[in-house]
């Protein structure tokens, strides 16, 4: 349903916009496919309703600008679909992607809250390493296993592994926790301003 543009640049602009819509809707449910046609009809109506004047590209850009960026308005739909599929099939990757889109769709502030939440969780892990090391030293620290693989933090199975840092884990974890605390708190202050 492409309008009869005389300017090839307008045709390209239309094509690029709706290619992005198609790409995003491919991640959404089957009944969302009709959405692309609805959006195309909308732009055609929007172009017809505009007062004449200006080039085709300018008029199309204005109509698409009013419609918005596809990712901004399609994200809630993609999130719903991924979460529905993830919950039905028990696939954690779909649930994680759905949650990511849901958080992004909520607001930038929600995304920032999620990121800072993860950051403070990491801080708590480093603090826990420092506290637990003296009491549970054989499972806390930096370990190299017999096959050369490295594990760090609070590690359940350490059979045959060599602890690399010893009690140095405590000050290192404390320093990292302190740096994280300062960076996260300053970042949070900047975001909330």
């Amino acid at each position: 349903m492409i309008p009869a543009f005389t300017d090839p640049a307008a045709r390209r602009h239309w094509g690029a916009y709706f290619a992005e819509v198609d790409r995003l809707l491919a991640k959404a449910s089957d009944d969302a496919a009709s959405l692309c046609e609805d959006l195309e009809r909308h732009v055609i109506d929007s172009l017809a309703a505009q007062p004449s004047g200006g080039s085709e590209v300018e008029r199309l850009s204005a109509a698409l600008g009013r419609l918005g960026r596809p990712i901004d308005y399609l994200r809630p739909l993609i999130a719903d679909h991924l979460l529905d599929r993830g919950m039905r099939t028990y696939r954690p990757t779909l649930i994680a992607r759905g949650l990511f889109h849901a958080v992004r769709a909520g607001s930038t502030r929600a995304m920032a809250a999620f990121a800072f939440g993860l950051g403070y969780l990491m801080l708590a892990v480093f603090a826990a390493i420092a506290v637990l090391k003296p009491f549970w030293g054989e499972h806390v620290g930096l370990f190299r296993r017999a096959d050369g693989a490295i594990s760090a933090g609070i590690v359940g199975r350490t059979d045959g592994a060599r602890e690399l840092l010893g009690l140095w884990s405590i000050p290192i974890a404390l320093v990292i926790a302190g740096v994280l605390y300062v960076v996260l708190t300053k970042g949070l202050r900047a975001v909330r301003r």
Partner: protein
Amino acid sequence: MTRKSSELDEAIGRWEVQLRKGVLEFVILVSLREREQYGFELISGVARRASLDVPEGTLYPLLLRLARDGLVASRLAEGDGGAPRKYYALTVQGRDLTDAMVPAWLRLVASVDRMLTGEPA
């Protein structure tokens, strides 16, 4: 413009965006309660009459969800230029829900107004 007044304008702008997003679904239902409308007509009317200046694309995923919930139904009909248009209308369930939402909205607006004017509840 001072930095303080610019920050205030930004804060008001963010608050208004959230407020408008929150009432969009209700406004769409109220608008469709009057008569069936096609997408562009619906969002243009909402933007003009309710001063809801949201991205127009927001309308379609919302209509899709309302249709999945059985509140809105659509039909294709000839448009002005010959290209078919999709017209949206409330279902019986959608009309019942909207009719029930209106008094709740009026109560909310009245109670906030009373707070603003300092009247007792």
